[in-house]
């Protein structure tokens, strides 16, 4: 069971995580440049102006891979809470 920070991302990077149990995934996002974008499984979830920050959470099903990607001007910390 993974609980806690699962990874950090800065600029053009992605992270893939497959929860063992149903999970709530939380993203803390910041924009470091003109426009900071973040996607989850290729769907854009954030488009932040320069210097902006945001929090975002979503549920992920057990066994379903989740890929979080940051654009060139975004950073993110991903953490999870799995419910077993």
């Amino acid at each position, binding site marked *: 069971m993974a609980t806690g920070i699962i990874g950090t991302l800065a600029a053009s990077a992605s992270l893939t995580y*497959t929860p063992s149990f149903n999970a709530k995934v939380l993203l803390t996002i910041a924009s470091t*440049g003109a*426009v900071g974008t973040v996607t989850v499984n290729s769907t854009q979830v954030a488009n932040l102006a320069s210097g902006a920050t945001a929090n975002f959470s979503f549920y992920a099903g057990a066994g379903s891979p989740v890929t979080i990607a940051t654009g060139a001007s975004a950073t993110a910390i991903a953490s999870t809470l799995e419910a077993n």
Partner: protein
Amino acid sequence: MKTVFVSNGVVAGHAAAHQSGVTVSSTIPGAAAYDVDDSSPVDAGWTVTLDANGVPTFTAPAPPTTCVISAVDFYDCFTPSEAVAIKASTDPLVQEFVFRLLQRIDAGRSVDTSSPSIQEGVEYLATSVRLPATTPASTYIATSRVAEILRGTMQ
């Protein structure tokens, strides 16, 4: 362990996995990956050189310096293909950037590349998907060109 992703000799991004089973990668196709210590200060925009054994050395970018040049010279910092793509853009923000630059050219004014509006404009050109869309999708300028343009290096 932090994984640093390098494209065209420049750090394009980095990521770290903090749980087993978590994988990290670059969103830039073909980017090379190097592992560094978690405490390493290496960040996006740093340059990379490889020694004979392929061991990377990372160098922080020089701090930005104030650069005031004429608007015409600033326009000449873009390559012809970059300028064509920027002028043909259907993105309202890019069109506004072009409009303001042309106004400055017409008025014979200068451009301060250290100003936030110019820096954010150039960064936007490097991070926004080019419109009208191209296949494969690309940005107006490469990320590695941002520092060069803001230094006022004419093409």
